[in-house]
Structures are given as C-alpha cells and as structure tokens.
C-alpha cells in the first residue's frame, strides 16, 4: 500500500532549503549550541549533496508541536530543522540540547545517490546512555556511531557515514512492513 520513496536527486538545493531553516534557535540565544558534522560516502569522501532534518525535544524534555518552522520568528522553538550540507559535506544546526532521561535528536538523511531516506539518532552524550535498552542491545562499534561527540565549545559533533568502516547505524521502525 505504501508509496515508495525516491532519491532527493541533485536539484533540491533551490527548493527545500530556506532562510534560517537550520536555526532552531538564533545563534546568539543563551544555551544555543551547534549540532554539526560531515556526511561521508563509502570511500570516506564528503557528500556535497545531502540534506538532513532533525526533530527533537526542548531542554525540558517536551517535544514542541507548534508551527512556525518555515517563517521563524526567533522566539518560538519548534523542535524541527533542516540543513543542506555545504560543498565540503558539512551541515550545521543551531539548537538547544534536548532534555529527558536519554535525550537524542531524531535525524533523517537524504542525498543524491541515496534512493530512499535513512533514519538515525544522535544521542546526547551523558551518563544515562548506559541504561538505554536499545543502545545496550548494540555492538559497541554500532553504538558509538549513534552518540554525538561533545566539543570543548559545548557544541555537539555528529558525523554520518553512509557506508564502509564505521558506517552509521541506521534505523527501521517497528510497524514498518
């Protein structure tokens, strides 16, 4: 029954990105961090035509369900953002660190050459991760690909490897045929 996916192709760049799409909060806002990283292909080469979206809770652990993601007013936190990579395969969101017991950013990846989207999670590093049954079910190397790296600046780095050594662990959800 389900309509199949198809690749985003090479020409989304004039259509899907929009002003402040990647700024879930303005960079100057207190508590603002960057969630950023590079998308790599199976040869370890940065992918210059990928697009990411994130969905997340706020610092209070609550997932906002408010509109305003396209015409951001700079005050309302919608918990959703979109970022195209630059020619070096690098993406960057400005956002808040999600709260909750085992906080993560839900991430979806699109790219030319990728025939359907990929889901993953960028977990916020912290002591609670050891208690998460899903993370505990993974091999250590698979688990490591799902945990963002805290940088001295307070930013979080989350690289994505589509293939090969260190491939990011991608997800399929229960209920998917």
């Amino acid at each position, binding site marked *: 029954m389900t309509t199949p996916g198809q690749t985003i192709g090479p020409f989304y760049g004039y259509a899907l990105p929009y002003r402040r799409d990647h700024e879930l909060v303005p960079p100057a806002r207190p508590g603002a961090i960057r969630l950023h990283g590079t998308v790599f292909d199976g040869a370890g080469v940065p992918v210059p035509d990928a697009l990411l979206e994130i969905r997340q809770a706020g610092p209070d652990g609550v997932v906002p369900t408010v*509109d305003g993601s396209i015409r951001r007013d700079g005050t309302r936190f919608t918990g959703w953002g979109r970022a195209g990579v630059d020619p070096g395969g690098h993406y960057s969101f400005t956002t808040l660190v999600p709260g909750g017991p085992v906080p993560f950013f839900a991430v979806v990846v699109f790219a030319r050459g990728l025939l359907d989207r990929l889901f993953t999670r960028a977990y916020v590093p912290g002591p609670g991760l050891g208690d998460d049954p899903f993370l505990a079910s993974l091999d250590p190397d698979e688990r490591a690909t799902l945990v963002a790296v805290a940088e001295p600046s307070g930013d979080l780095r989350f690289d994505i490897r589509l293939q090969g050594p260190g491939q990011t662990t991608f997800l399929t959800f229960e209920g998917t*045929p």
Partner: protein
Amino acid sequence: MTADPSQRDISAEIEALHAGPAPARQPILSFTPYRSSTLRHPTRAPRRVDPEGAELFAPVFGHCDVDPLEADLTIRHGGVPIGERIVVQGRVVDGDGRPVRRQLVEVWQANAGGRYLHQRDQHPSPVDPNFTGVGRCLTDDDGGYRFVTIRPGPYPWRNHHNAWRPAHIHFSLFGTQFTQRLITQMYFPGDPLSGLDPIYQSVTDPRDRERLVAAYDHDLSEHEWLLGYRWDIVLSGPHRTPLDAS
C-alpha cells in the same frame, strides 16, 4: 578508460535485478544501475527499533508558514510560463487510510524544457524566466493537496550514455510522526522513459512502482484551461510500539 555503459547495458542490469527472488516494495538502496548509489548505500542492515520521543511527533506547520499562493507554480512571476498547464491533486493518507491533515507538502520540478532552475543543471535547454518550479501547500482536513503547475519535460543525465530521466515532480511529505517522513517522485502515465529509468525501476515490485505514477483524470481538467492528474500518497505507519497495540 572504459566507455560509459549504454542504455542496453543498464536495461540488462535492471532486468537481472528484477528477476531476483523477492520483489522490493521500496527502492533497493544498492540498486547498481543507478550508479550514484554505489558508495552511498549502507551495507549493514538497519536496526529495528520502537519509535520514541521526538520520533513520535511530526513537525507542525501552519498558515504562518505557507502562503496559499505557493500552491500555484504558474503565477510566481510577471508572465505566463511556457508549457502544458496542469493541476496535480490528490490526498495524503497514512497506512491506516486516515487523512494527514494540515501538513506540509513541498514540490520541485524542471520546466517544460526539462531544465531546473539550479546552478548545477547544465542541460542546454532554456531557463523559463516565468517558472521557478517550486511549490508548497498545506493539506486540507481531508488530507487533500492541489498544485497548479507546468508539465515538466524529461531531461538528460550522466548515469550512462544517452540517459534520460522520465518527466517527474519531486514531492516532500510529512505524516503525523517523524518516522513517516518521505521524499519521492511522481511520474506521468504512459511515459516511454519510465521503463529505462534506474531510479524508477529501483522499486522492483511492479505494483508498488506503479504507485509512483499519477493518473490522468478528466474530471480534474478544466475547460480551455488545464489538464488534470490525480496522485494519492500513502505514508508508512503510524509506527506503533507494542505497548500501543495492546
């Protein structure tokens, strides 16, 4: 240096993959006739997980986000774009058949000559100063969407020698959960290029592949004005946890 594969070579590869044991209802990510997939498909299977937290909530869009005029791709400039004026209309529903209400639909496409308004598109076909090829709308309470546009042209690409993409419109869709996120392409009925196209053919189950093809609907056509196509979209899910199902 080896010569670029011919369409005959690519078609033979497609045919061999279609002869595989289990037809795929979603695109095969490692579909080698689409050459760009070679280094960009995961080789380790995805991990099955119960959706939780933010995954259970789609982003919300409202009337502050989308201007109703964005659903008409033919009125964005001073003049009338060149080409065959069409309407593409349909419904977005979830796997249970329930309408996805007041949710964002985005489209982008080439112009009538098969040219995208994108700096990386070097196809020597003219840019139409009256056509950008980008639209947005929110679905209505029945999950309905409607775009007025120009029928896009097919265009050449570099996958293999003399490779042409069938005419298509890119669609970006959201459901009620983040897990339902979908980007896909809508094709036109009877396009002779569809059978040759490794992107379209990456869905190896023919019934599912045909879900990507709109239907001509004369009831949507308007007298002396435009031709109508209907295309309904069924999202996966909603993805329930075992707890919800009990």
